[in-house]
């Protein structure tokens, strides 16, 4: 009798321990890779920001490079550009993506084919996206300047990439093209998971299409929207490839974002200490943003 009780107790302990350990065993490969390839380099990267690197030696600089940040005119310009680049790209990606998701949720002929086609831009390598759009904006080999000229957006058919006032729109349009599928896929999935009965009930209560959208669709989509907008904002803000390929930050620094500025500082000017200081600034801004959105999402979720 006691033996049985003892093994039962033993079994209970074993189970408890395995219940505590089991998830960590499954998580360990992922956490190990992230720790060694991302977190350790990140910490080393942060430490670089306190050192001044020159061609032959490195010396401790303390907070000097952070002080330089405060008076760096190029950086201030890049901050403003980053805000434009991020907000502009995100705004159009999100609303066009939401529109596409709602369209693809309606039944129509050839929907499967359309869905496969409109999601294709996501599969196009960034580098190629940048090159192709540069061509489309080029008046000699691309149609867009002539279209803009014909509809009166431009007074003559020239590339928008060459003028400081319009250059940022080039990478933004390319980025919107590339980014719509991401929002469309995630929002379509979220929209499909809303039970149909809710719409039937709303229709019986006499809700208009607009009311159904604002009172049923949007509240259900809100958690997904919060998380995807957050991830996307961060991805866009740190995304240098497109701008680098299309304008390399020019003309006259008009498309220079923090991400491209870090890249240029680190690999063109070979000042990895200063590049790291700028990167730390960006990192702090993004983490603060991410935490605010997560908190907002938590509050939103509580309402339901």
């Amino acid at each position, binding site marked *: 009798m006691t033996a049985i009780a003892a093994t039962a107790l033993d079994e209970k302990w074993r189970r408890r321990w395995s219940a505590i350990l089991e*998830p960590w065993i499954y998580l360990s490969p992922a956490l190990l890779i992230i720790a060694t390839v991302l977190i350790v380099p990140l910490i080393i990267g942060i430490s670089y920001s306190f050192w001044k690197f020159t061609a032959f030696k490195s010396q401790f600089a303390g907070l000097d490079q952070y002080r330089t940040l405060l008076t760096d005119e190029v950086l201030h310009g890049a901050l403003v550009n980053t805000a434009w680049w991020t907000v502009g790209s995100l705004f159009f990606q999100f609303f066009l993506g939401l*529109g596409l998701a709602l*369209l693809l949720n309606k039944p129509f002929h050839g929907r499967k084919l*359309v869905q496969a086609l409109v999601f294709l831009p996501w599969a196009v390598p960034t580098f190629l996206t940048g090159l192709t759009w540069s061509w489309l904006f080029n008046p000699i080999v691309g149609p867009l300047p002539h279209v803009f000229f014909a509809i009166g957006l431009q007074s003559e058919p020239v590339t928008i990439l060459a003028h400081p006032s319009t250059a940022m729109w080039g990478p933004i349009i390319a980025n919107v093209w590339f980014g719509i599928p991401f929002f469309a*896929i995630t929002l379509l999935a979220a929209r499909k998971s809303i039970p149909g009965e809710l719409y039937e009930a709303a229709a019986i209560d006499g809700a208009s299409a607009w009311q159904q959208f604002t009172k049923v669709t949007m509240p259900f989509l809100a958690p997904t929207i919060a998380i995807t907008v957050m991830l996307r904002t961060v991805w866009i803000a740190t995304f240098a490839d497109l701008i680098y390929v299309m304008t390399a930050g020019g003309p006259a620094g008009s498309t220079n974002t923090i991400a491209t500025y870090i890249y240029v500082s680190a690999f063109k000017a070979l000042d990895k200490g200063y590049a790291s200081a700028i990167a730390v600034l960006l990192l702090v801004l993004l*983490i603060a943003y991410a935490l605010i959105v997560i908190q907002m999402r938590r509050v939103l979720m509580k309402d339901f």
Partner: protein
Amino acid sequence: MVGQSKFRRTVNAMGLYGAILAYVAFALFPIYWTVKISVTPENLLYSEGIKLWPTHMTLKNYQTVLRASDFPRYFLNSMIVSIATALIVTAVASLAGYALSRFRFQGKAWVSLVLLLTQTFPLVMVIPPIFRIMGQLGLTDNLYGLIVIYTAFTIAFATFLMQSFFDGVPKDLEEAAMIDGCTRVMALRRIILPLTLPGMGATVAFVFTAAWSELLFALMLINSEDQKTFSVGLLTFIGKFAVDWGQMMAASVMALIPVCIFFAFLQRYLVTGLTAGAVKG
């Protein structure tokens, strides 16, 4: 009354198809333009630059790229890196996603937060340290280094994806099997795995496309000709031969083919898989 509603339906349908057409045109036109440039003979490249289709067509660019350049090598390298990364990430992210979906444990919220925050790391900041570490491990200038880095950068999002796919499979199914005497591993293999296979397919597609198109790391880490991936290889078209656009676009079109087929095939799993899990967000 009936006539009016019929009229409204027609207008609505026209609006729907118009909007769909606009989206399809916007999505496909740049790809179409790439194809067009790739088949334009060099002497017409600028003179017929803004025509929708050149008066003569040529496949010479494709022949040159396939026979006289290192492109087949780049292509193979990209294939190796992307497939290896996709398989590793999907396996690791499935485990992690399963843990986050099925267990309640202390520190779970922290794990999610850390995963999420890794997405805020500016890539350019970790490149110099990674370059140094990789150099010490002898992983610069070869494909293993790229696989390791791409794995680390895509794992967080892949884990969230897999978590939402697992969330979509009712827990009862697994518990019933375990009551019937299955171990967790058996339940996983016989019940959960078949049901989340589409989700894994979608994760493979997502990671594959991300690895296939990455440029900056590949540019930093790879120097030797025979280790270059295709995005870095494309850049050599700019450097070496004063930009041979036709050849470059031909190479691009060929690089697009596998990834587009792959993605077109798997994107619907991405939607269906996410739909099941989206309720719990």
